[in-house]
């Protein structure tokens, strides 16, 4: 009998807490777990090689995170100011980046330039290694400003990977108490980025609650169900899944703003991970695109090519 099938005894069921916890920061082993998930998803998948490559990239991210130096954190004054002004404390667009992110990027690029991946991927990594720092900073600025389309497709995953490490490091160093709920429910309260996907939890006090998962720092923040994460409309929301599947992944789609975001229902599969399972279910994205729908949040490991709409 596997873990998921185990019957719970009455005393083991955690009652719903009085207050809904609004924020869960990423754990320090996020990238190792993501790598594990990519490795589980890859065999037999139409994009098996790409998913295996992302497993290696996640390994490199974990290594970079484990060796990250201790950095100065925002002062208590800054924290109070952000709270008062309804601003994310680690705003991806505004906050000065410590040079340490470049060290992390260097480590990731060296690992990937020497990895058993297609020549094009190795060359992209090697090319970035010899890049001037100012160009790397410029690419980072574009990604963090939400302008991923302006970054060359083969370079986006590497630079974004290093930025993810930096933001996960900063967020976990500060701890949950440093962050407050923002008025805008659809952006990350830690860094202000758009979500990559949403997770509907299955266990304990989180059962049935939907958390959005940040595309940059993997923070999960609470947003009520049946609500568009892009424009916060609640009317006429539709749920699309691939016919014949168990409905573990559904696209929550809004008729008002025409955007959708994938939701992962952990009740159907408890092993799913926000970034990995998003990339393993691109078939759903492609069918949504045929319906004329657009994604409400990016996955930083995929420059989708083709057309991009601004909002």
């Amino acid at each position, binding site marked *: 009998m596997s873990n998921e099938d185990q019957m719970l005894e009455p005393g083991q069921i955690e009652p719903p807490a009085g207050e809904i916890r609004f924020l869960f920061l990423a754990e320090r082993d996020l990238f190792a777990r993501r790598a594990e998930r990519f490795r589980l998803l890859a065999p037999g998948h139409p994009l098996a090689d790409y998913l295996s490559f992302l497993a290696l990239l996640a390994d490199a991210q974990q290594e970079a995170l484990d060796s990250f130096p201790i950095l100065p954190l925002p002062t208590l004054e800054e924290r109070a100011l952000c709270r008062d002004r309804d601003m994310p404390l680690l705003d991806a667009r505004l906050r000065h980046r410590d040079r340490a992110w470049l060290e992390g990027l260097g480590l990731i690029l060296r690992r990937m330039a020497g990895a058993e991946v297609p020549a094009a991927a190795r060359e992209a990594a090697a090319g970035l290694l010899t890049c001037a720092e100012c160009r790397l900073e410029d690419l980072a600025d574009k990604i963090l400003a939400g302008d991923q389309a302006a970054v060359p*497709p083969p370079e986006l995953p590497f630079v974004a990977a290093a930025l993810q490490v930096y933001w996960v490091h900063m967020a976990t160093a500060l701890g949950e108490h440093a962050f407050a709920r923002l008025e805008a429910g659809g952006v990350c309260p830690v860094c202000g980025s758009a979500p990559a996907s949403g997770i509907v939890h299955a266990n304990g006090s989180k059962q049935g609650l939907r958390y959005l998962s940040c595309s940059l720092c993997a923070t999960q923040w609470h947003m009520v169900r049946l609500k568009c994460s892009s424009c916060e409309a609640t009317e006429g929301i539709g749920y699309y899944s691939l*016919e014949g599947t168990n409905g573990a992944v559904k696209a929550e789609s809004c008729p008002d703003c025409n955007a959708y975001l994938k939701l992962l229902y952990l009740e159907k599969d408890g092993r799913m991970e926000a970034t990995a399972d998003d990339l393993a279910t691109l078939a759903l994205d492609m069918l949504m695109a045929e319906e004329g729908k657009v994604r409400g949040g990016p996955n930083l490991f995929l420059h989708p*090519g083709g057309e991009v*709409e601004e909002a």
Partner: protein
Amino acid sequence: MKVTRRQFFKISAGGLGSSSIAMLGFSPGEAQAEVRTFKLARSTETRNTCPYCSVSCGLIMHSLGDRAKNAESAIFHIEGDPDHPVNRGTLCPKGAGLVDFIHSENRLKYPEYRAPGSREWKRISWDEAFTRVARLMKDDRDKNFIAKNAAGVTVNRWVTTGFLAASASSNESGYITHKAIRSLGALAFDNQARV
């Protein structure tokens, strides 16, 4: 405040040829081909309130289709609303069985009448049902209405008939029910709103 400029991507089968996948040296061909074997299934999730008792637990009902088109929308799943402050996603055993209540073959869908002494339930029209109820109420009230008590004080009571209203009514329909029944003088009046 607009925190970030948000881009709305389309991840299309056509775009994958110039995506990170292709540009990093992976072939998107198989994924592009696989898509043609899939179809989208659409469902709708709708918030509602449990009809059983006055606790009024929040529900999320899952149904097939989009409710707008001609397709029949069938409810296939009901769960407690995890965001609802009353029940936080939990349901009692009756509430947890709601989807079977909806699809039950024994569910009452029209008025039925069983005459005194009879063992048979007979289907009647809504019109017949309303007329009969109103007739019986009027007859009973005409016969038993108490306008004044023994001391000659006006009381306008009607105590031989009671009225039980629904549990899942809104505040407004509760108000209207109260107005209608109390103005007949009925004292025995309650909502089926007790657990």
